[in-house]
């Protein structure tokens, strides 16, 4: 950068006819352009390593994850011949004998037992019971294949005569599927190409999404109402009291999340400090259920997210000159009018940034809801982890991840358009 600038300020030998035409101005312009280019290349060289690193350690993992939401290899790997034999089948009645033969042939041909197991698991997502049906069939056919295959398969399980089972196999011959994404919003692929609502007992994720958004919105709102007076006091009062208050806000920020979460579990339990205090003050007779439910979740989340609301508010309020408020008062406005028409509008950028930050962090929160919430308080992120770790349903985990990410990016888009992303993260 320094090099580039000096050569513009003190034009060197490049002054002359760089572009073939004589003249000081155009030569200067050419030199200037070259310097600019060199400066840009220098910037890119400095940023390059980070971009490469982020692409490797973040963008590719994220892409892999998102790809799992539509990836559909299981049935194709296990049943290539069956899928070929079903190509012309119209989905009505039982398929031709050739399809039964192909199933038996595919079972005998699959060398790796995992291939069939994975296909069974995949088909089971769509029709409960398919996994055991397939496992049973694989066992029997492997042991003693019989001709004709139709008779043997139907003898193993009558459901081989059910066209719905065959249609699921046929439908999953495509390399990509919308099944997981549809399931993430409680939809299922319909029988004739459309979509339909999932059966009521399997509707799970729309209510989880609503719960995630409701909890996040309420946490954000509580944080805003608690943080606003605090931020104002930190800026307006000044001196030692302000410094102490700021330290009180910052200390939790620097304290381990797990330390704070464990503290709340201990304090809010039945024999905890809060319940003892409430009983000692005769506010309640019996201990209240304060933890492992929604109440505990709200208390702990507000505690953890409050600094994220206070700090942006403080930084915006610091920039508001007290003379605005004084001017408003001197023009005859009462305190309420001054606040509503002068002070509040000036703090809105801080309110926007703080609310966005708080909402987004709480919408993606995993640790605190898992430890402090009850079974019915779990949010989307819990299910993302649950499907990845516990049931190994990577497609569902990824699809719920897509749902969560879409909500968050949409929010960033909306607020970013109003406030500016750089401003939210503090880079502009």
């Amino acid at each position: 950068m320094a090099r580039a600038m000096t050569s513009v300020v003190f034009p060197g030998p490049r002054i002359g006819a760089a572009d073939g035409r004589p003249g000081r101005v155009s030569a200067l312009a050419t030199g200037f352009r070259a310097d600019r280019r060199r400066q840009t290349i220098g910037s890119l060289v400095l940023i390059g390593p980070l971009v490469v690193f982020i692409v490797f350690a973040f963008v590719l993992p994220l892409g892999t994850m998102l790809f799992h939401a539509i990836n559909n290899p299981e049935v194709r790997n296990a049943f290539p011949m069956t899928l070929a034999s079903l190509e012309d089948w119209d989905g009505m009645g039982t398929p031709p004998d050739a399809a039964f033969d192909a199933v038996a042939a595919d079972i005998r041909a699959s060398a790796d037992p995992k291939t069939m197991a994975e296909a069974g698991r995949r088909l089971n997502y769509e029709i409960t019971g398919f996994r055991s049906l397939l496992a049973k069939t694989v066992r029997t056919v492997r042991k003693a294949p019989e001709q004709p295959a139709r008779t043997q398969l139907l003898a193993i399980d009558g459901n081989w005569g059910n066209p719905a089972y065959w249609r699921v196999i046929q439908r999953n011959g495509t390399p990509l599927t919308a099944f997981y994404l549809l399931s993430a919003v409680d939809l299922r692929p319909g029988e004739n190409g459309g979509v339909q609502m999932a059966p009521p007992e399997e509707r799970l994720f729309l209510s989880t999404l609503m719960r995630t958004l409701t909890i996040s919105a309420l946490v954000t709102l509580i944080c805003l109402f608690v943080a606003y007076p605090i931020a104002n006091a930190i800026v307006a009062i000044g001196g030692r009291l302000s410094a102490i208050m700021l330290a009180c806000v910052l200390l939790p920020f620097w304290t381990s999340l797990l330390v704070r979460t464990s503290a709340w579990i201990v304090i809010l339990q039945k024999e905890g400090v809060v319940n003892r205090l409430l009983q000692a003050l005769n506010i309640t007779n019996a201990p209240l259920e304060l933890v492992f439910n929604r109440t505990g979740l709200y208390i702990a989340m507000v505690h953890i997210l409050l600094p994220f609301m206070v700090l942006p508010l403080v930084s915006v309020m610091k920039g508001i000159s007290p003379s605005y408020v004084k001017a408003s008062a001197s023009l005859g406005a009462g305190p309420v009018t001054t606040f509503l028409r002068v002070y509040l509008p000036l703090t809105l950028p801080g309110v926007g940034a703080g609310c966005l930050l708080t909402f987004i962090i709480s919408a993606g929160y995993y640790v605190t809801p898992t430890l402090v919430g009850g079974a019915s308080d779990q949010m989307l992120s819990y299910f993302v982890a649950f499907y990845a770790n516990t049931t190994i349903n990577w497609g569902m985990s990824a699809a719920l991840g897509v749902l969560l990410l879409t909500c968050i990016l949409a929010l960033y888009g909306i607020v970013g358009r109003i406030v500016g992303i750089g401003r939210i993260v503090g880079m502009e």
Partner: protein
Amino acid sequence: MPVALRRVQIAFCCLAMIFLIGPTIVVIPISFSSANFLSYPLPGFSLQWYEKILQPQPWMSALLNSLIIGAGATLVSTVLGTLAALGMSRGRLPARSMILAVVISPMIVPVVISGVGMYFFFAKLGLVASFLGLVLAHAVLAVPFVLITVTATLKNFDVNLVRAAASLGASPFHAFRTVTLPLIAPGVISGALFAFVFSFDEVVVALFISGPGQRTLPRQMFDGLRDNIDPSILAMSTLLVIISIVLMGGGALAQKRAATNRSTANV
């Protein structure tokens, strides 16, 4: 503002401060309890829980793992983040907002999603259940903090100082080492501090990609809280609170030095 209203506000703030600080402090005495239950009144005083966390297994080895991974992640993210911040601050960057979006994206995406993605992707590369994998994962998630902190410092940095160095014959590297770096050091240090604290406290990615050999301190605490919570967790918490007070003091000091540098640089 009317005096009465201000008093109400201050009273409210005091309650909020108790809410913010109280829980962490109230549980500290329980870590000195002679019993293994987690409530008052305490039956007696004992240091048994501190003895327990000073044993190599499981707490001290978890602490060591956390320190190793934190140090590695801090090094990687501070070097890459500082270089990139220098590049971004020079202006004249094509697709600047696009690059900005990429480099801060690890901060925007919920960490559960990042964790699952890394679990899928790192498994293919054999990076799951390895120190290297966890260092890279923590580094990439911490890098936006470094970038933002150093960028903020560079905003107050007078570019003419580098020009002066160059006009006196310093090479870009020499100018960086002797002029730029000492002046932005407080920003770099607080960025590194942020990165370390992030890694030291990170549990979600660790849950996904650490093996038994890389059990970190937060992961140990997470499992303890979920399965069987006893006062040794509170003893560890107490140590961590002391560490965070020290780190916070360090951060404040770095910022104060940054402010001093700024005022001297502007003279």
